[in-house]
């Protein structure tokens, strides 16, 4: 952990000092800032309606999810199908924390950062826990274990009963809390098994969400660019070579799993403090796969592409609402076409040409000016 910290802070310094790949990183960080800035402006001028306004914060937490999953899938090269499970842990732990403390800690400026930290750490602990037994696994086997993990987390959360009364918290697993143990006059149900978690204070807003996106990007981009990041990528490229060069695979795998889970947890906290209800059902393998689709379409290991793909793919079904019942069909077709086109050699060639053309033009313009 100590190593990572110094790497990150060195990375941040490097960013400020504009060295090596810093420019590229700044662009990647600027994309969401500009996108959300422009959108928020258009929303406040009434150009974009409340549908778009309502999409902005969810977009932020899906970006955090996709970028953190890309760290596992793209940089470490291990397929994880249980990313929504970490989000679930974060959403529930952070949400319950805020629910319980909303009367004692009244300022959201103190409560929400605490909730984020606690939710993120809880998810990170789960990430490390799952990281330890699966260190020997890779490829399909690891994918299956992570898939199972996500489902286990979902099922555990669906069976928790938690209530608060004057005597404190009461917890029960799989069966409802015995009413005799509760002080009925002051009883407040927090979690009732499969019932959704409701009543979490709505602390999240676009500014906070955007700040979290930027923090996530800074940490992950600098991690990739650091010594640690290079070690992680060497594990992806050739495990045996990396091991024989003295790279501690266990350590680096755990760093990636922990960090990736931490940010997924942060995204979960953001989600539970923005959405009106949080339902464990929501965090099933469909959500994990959805995030994986964002990552794959955006490009494995490519954070900028992931951000753009997340924005496009999450907003698309909402913007297709005008098509009524053909909406999901069109969405699926667009998805297939995008996947094929994105990997088509001819298309890639054209894209490069277009890029060259654009940049050449601008160069000429600038010289004229």
């Amino acid at each position, binding site marked *: 952990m100590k190593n990572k910290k110094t790497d990150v802070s060195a990375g941040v310094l490097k960013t400020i000092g504009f060295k090596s790949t810093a420019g590229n990183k700044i*662009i990647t960080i*600027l*994309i969401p800032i500009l996108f959300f800035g422009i959108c928020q402006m258009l929303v406040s001028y009434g150009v974009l309606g409340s549908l778009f306004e309502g999409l902005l914060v969810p977009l932020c937490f899906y970006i955090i999810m996709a970028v953190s999953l890309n760290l596992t899938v793209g940089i470490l090269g291990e397929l994880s199908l249980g990313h929504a499970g970490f989000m679930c842990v974060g959403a529930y732990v952070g949400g319950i924390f805020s629910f319980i403390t909303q009367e004692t800690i009244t300022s959201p400026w103190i409560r929400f950062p605490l909730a984020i930290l606690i939710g993120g750490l809880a998810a990170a602990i789960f990430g490390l826990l799952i990281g330890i037994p699966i260190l020997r696994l890779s490829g399909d086997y690891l994918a299956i274990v992570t898939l199972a993990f996500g489902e286990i987390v979902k099922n555990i959360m669906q069976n928790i009963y938690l209530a608060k009364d004057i005597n404190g918290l009461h917890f029960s697993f799989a069966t409802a809390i015995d009413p005799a143990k509760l002080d009925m006059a002051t009883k407040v149900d927090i979690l009732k098994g*499969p019932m959704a978690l409701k009543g979490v204070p709505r602390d999240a807003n676009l500014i906070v969400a955007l700040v979290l996106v930027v923090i996530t990007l800074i940490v992950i981009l600098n991690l990739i660019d650091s010594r640690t990041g290079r070690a992680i990528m060497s594990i992806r490229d050739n495990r045996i070579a990396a091991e024989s060069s003295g790279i501690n695979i266990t350590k680096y795998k755990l760093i990636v799993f922990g960090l990736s889970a931490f940010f997924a947890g942060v995204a979960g906290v953001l989600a539970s403090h923005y959405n*009106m209800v949080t339902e464990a*059902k929501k965090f099933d393998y469909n959500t994990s796969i959805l995030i994986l689709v964002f990552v794959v379409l955006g490009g494995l290991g490519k954070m900028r592409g992931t951000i753009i793909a997340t924005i496009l793919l999450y907003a698309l079904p*909402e913007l297709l609402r005008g098509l009524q019942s053909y909406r999901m069909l069109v969405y699926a077709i667009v998805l297939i076409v995008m996947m094929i086109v994105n990997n088509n050699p001819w298309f890639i060639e054209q894209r490069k040409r277009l890029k060259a053309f654009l940049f050449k033009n*601008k*160069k000429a313009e600038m010289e004229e000016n």
Partner: protein
Amino acid sequence: MKNLKRIIAMLMAATLMVAAFSACGDSQETTTAAQGDESNRAKTAEGGTFLIGGIGPLTGPAAVYGIAVQRGAQIAIDEINAAGGVNGMTLALDFQDDEHDAEKAVNAYNTIKDNGAKVLLGTVTSTPCEAVVEKTYEDGMFQLTPSGSSVNAICHENAFRICFSDPSQGTAAAQYIKENLGYTKVAVIYDNSDVYSSGIYEKFVAEAQVQGIEIVSAQAFSGADNKDFNTQLIAINNAQPEIVFLPIYYQAAALILQQSSKAGYNFKFFGCDGLDGIIGQLEGDAALAEGVMLLTPFVSDDPAENVQSFVQAYQAAYGEIPNQFAADAYDGVYTIKAALEQAQITDASADVREIGTALSEAILQITVEGVTGTMKWTEDGECAKTPKGMVISNGVYTAITQ
């Protein structure tokens, strides 16, 4: 310099993207507006078009409910418009898909708000409803859910419902089993991951104690993915109940009926409104549903005149018998009409909050004779009406005769 150019390029791309998005937004609004125009085929009245927003699952596993609600509401709206509208206004429906997901339901709500909806008929399913009710409360929009049955689905003063609440169904089922059917040994199969099912189950257990019903076996399963109920059926068979209570949706119930018949068991089944649709789900095995009893507010073969005219109109338009969800939606639109008349709202362009406040007061004063019974509302948003006990015989729902 190279970086600067890149930044400029990205900026341009971002602007382009935003432009593309806003263009999408615009075109979408026009299409919905066009559809709105299309749907009120009747003459446009002076008061303008009063847009009713609807939200429900049109895709995904719960789509059957959303589609039924959309169709039921559309029939009522067409009827009302053909008869001259409400207070000089024409009604129109803007129904958006929520995929049975709370997050998408909020997006759908924002869409109908953008499209200019003044009241909300929805949402169809409970959990999305719990999320949307917070948004309508914020905006002061009047919300009437046809079928969102969980307690929290209408937790604010602007929200009302047509259907029974989950707890009231559990209580009513226990009372009905004891008082009308006279059984005291009951087994239950319920879905512990589902709000609807566990909500009913919890209250059923509580009321069963009061009624002196013995629950000989309570078997839980988890989620709609569960396809094998043999373990639960064996356990129930060992407990020898007089009747099996199924507070679940019809998809799982159909599997239970099939597997129970295959295993040679001969249980009597009793369910709630979620069992509505089971005959269609069983397809070739429809005979298995014979003798299944359920508590529901609506039956399509009720000889009452309003029920029959609704069933015929629905059949003519969509070629199928309406289920209870369609009936709830149909009543929902007529309730909105009655409340609009009571509140004397004549301007379709009035403020959402104004309309919302007026309607929330008006609905408490009216009584609506609907296809699901005679309805009156209380301040907590609940609708008072009596459930009818139904039994499936010869493939149709008929009232249980003692």
